[in-house]
């Protein structure tokens, strides 16, 4: 499932070659260490029930990290993913409320939600790739705009989701929790996307825009495509947020944007573009979740928790980057 350009990296054996093929190896090691530590501090945390809860809570961050990865492939960045997720969250909540909250209304609302995410992605792609504004500041400006839209649709947090909606997200079918079906669908989707032309083209653009252009790639269209894909995945993340919190909140995604960037880096993708995997980002989102759980289970006093989490995430970022550098440099 890795979409790593493997040419030009030949002739090196051992660890380096392994890292080239699987840039998310350091992340997997960190993940396993964290799982073991969690188990040591609180054996119950490795129960099926707890792990299901973990995935249910961090599914949204996994999807946002995936969203971010596709723009980072092309050496761009999207600081509006959290705002897009908030906007989609309030859009589907209000729609479901207006349409009565039945099964059909849920499907209709989700359809509209994906379209809203897509539209936001296209706007980002337009300002960054077509108007050639600097990605960091331009997507920050669009995030303010999207937040304003979300506040127009639902000025204050609190409108509830229909019972059927969050019951489904939190429920089980044939003994398997619903979120694991989501994970399975996500895995298939990511596999198909990794083999898609767009993913390869995004990596090519990230590797060198000028070179990609000169070999005939429609660079602007490809970058817009990356942002569009990002918007759609941010919408999917919003569905999970809505299922998890069961309510609408126009600011719910704001804090997740920077975590999505951290997850991409932790997952082994290069912010400079042209190299990376979505699998790594998904694992890294889980790492962030496990760090938060571990800090809790280790009995850290409540007001120290944020600080320890911050230190642990910084340490994980350093380890991840140092290990992958040693392998690839």
């Amino acid at each position, binding site marked *: 499932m890795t979409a790593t350009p493997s040419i030009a990296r030949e002739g090196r054996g051992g660890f380096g070659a392994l890292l080239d093929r699987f840039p998310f190896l350091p992340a997997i090691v960190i993940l396993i260490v964290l799982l073991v530590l969690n188990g040591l501090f609180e054996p119950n945390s490795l129960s099926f029930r707890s792990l299901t809860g973990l995935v249910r809570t961090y599914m949204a961050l996994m999807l946002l990290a995936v969203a971010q990865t596709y723009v980072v492939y092309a050496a761009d*960045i999207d*600081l509006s993913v959290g705002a897009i997720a908030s906007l989609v969250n309030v859009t589907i909540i209000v729609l479901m409320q207006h349409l009565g909250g039945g099964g059909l209304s849920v499907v209709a609302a989700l359809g509209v939600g994906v379209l809203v995410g897509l539209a936001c992605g296209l706007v980002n792609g337009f*300002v960054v790739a077509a*108007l*050639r*504004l*600097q990605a*960091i*500041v*331009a997507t*920050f*400006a*669009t*995030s*303010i*705009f*999207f*937040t*304003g*839209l*979300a*506040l*127009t649709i639902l*000025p204050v947090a609190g409108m509830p989701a229909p019972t059927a909606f969050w019951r489904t997200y939190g429920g089980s079918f044939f003994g398997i929790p619903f979120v694991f079906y989501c994970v399975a669908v996500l895995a298939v989707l990511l596999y198909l996307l990794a083999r898609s032309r767009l993913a390869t083209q995004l990596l090519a653009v990230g590797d060198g*825009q*000028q070179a990609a*252009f*000169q070999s005939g790639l429609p*660079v602007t269209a490809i970058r817009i495509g990356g942002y569009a894909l990002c918007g759609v995945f941010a919408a999917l993340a919003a569905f999970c947020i809505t299922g998890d919190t069961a309510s609408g909140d126009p600011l719910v995604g704001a804090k997740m944007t*920077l975590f999505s*960037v*951290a997850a991409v*880096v932790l997952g082994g993708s290069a*912010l*400079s573009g042209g190299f990376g995997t979505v699998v790594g980002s998904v694992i890294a989102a889980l790492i962030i979740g496990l760090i938060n759980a571990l800090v809790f289970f280790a009995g850290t006093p409540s*007001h*120290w*928790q*944020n*600080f*320890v*989490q*911050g*230190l642990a*995430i*910084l340490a994980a*970022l*350093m380890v991840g*980057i*140092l290990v992958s*550098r040693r392998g690839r440099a």
Partner: protein
Amino acid sequence: MSQALSFLRNPLVVALALIVALLVLGNALSPGFASGQQILRLLIVAALLGIVAAGQNLVILGGREGIDLSVGGVVSLSAIVAGNAMNGLDAGIPAAILACVATGAFFGLLNGLGVTLLRIPPLVMTLGMLGVLQGLLVVIRQGVPSGRAAPALSEFVTRPFLLGLPGIIWLWIAIGLLMAFILNRTVLGHRIYAIGSNEHAAFMAGVPVRRMRVLLFVLSGVFSAIAGFCLLGYSGSSFANVGEQYMLASIIAVVLGGTPLSGGKGGYTGTMAGAVLLVILQSILTTINIEESGRQMVFGATLLLLMLFYGRGRGLRA
């Protein structure tokens, strides 16, 4: 013809023209907006942002994707440190200044070492540091009174000091002159531009690239700490996360001032104008009578529009 109009492409000229236009617009929307008192109040707010942006500007000028996302955390932290160090007493001010500068320099040093020794991309390093700082704020706030500003500090920030301008504006002007002098007239300044436009060439020419980059991050921490110190005087007491708003605002002020995020060119004079521009824009939006949601949408759209005037990337050519 194009020669004669080329000054229109100067970011500083663009920013100043936009500032005048916004002041006229603001005065039309709400008479009295461009009065002396109001402008003075705006300048104080702009000075706080501008001081943070000075450090941000240096880090960005240094290139190699230089950016400092931790400035907001340092601003908040140093406001709290200052508040606790002086606790409402003028006698505590010197100690508070020392404590703030040390705090800022310490976190800047950590950022710089992470970026140079461990070669972590600045965006990631400072993002991680922001998380640590935010956690630290929660720890410090717990149970401890956040501290109050000394009367002399409040006076320095809000009361006229010389020629009708408060001390903080004079401080900002001094920082502006100092930055212009360093960037244009000293070896240090030339080295900053050198590592920003071509790090390898600068290294070959004997510039101590690593030490320079660490220095830039330390300076960014110190400028943020000074801003946090002054912010305490502006707000009277330090509350949590006062600095959060400065993270992206400082980057936007730099960009609106004509320094591209790729580094190597630009300067601080433009950034000062960018900070004023941003503050006036926000102020106009608060005076017009619309819902918060509409205000945000107008703000976001206006920022995009403003960015169109500046440093758009070069088009691809075959």
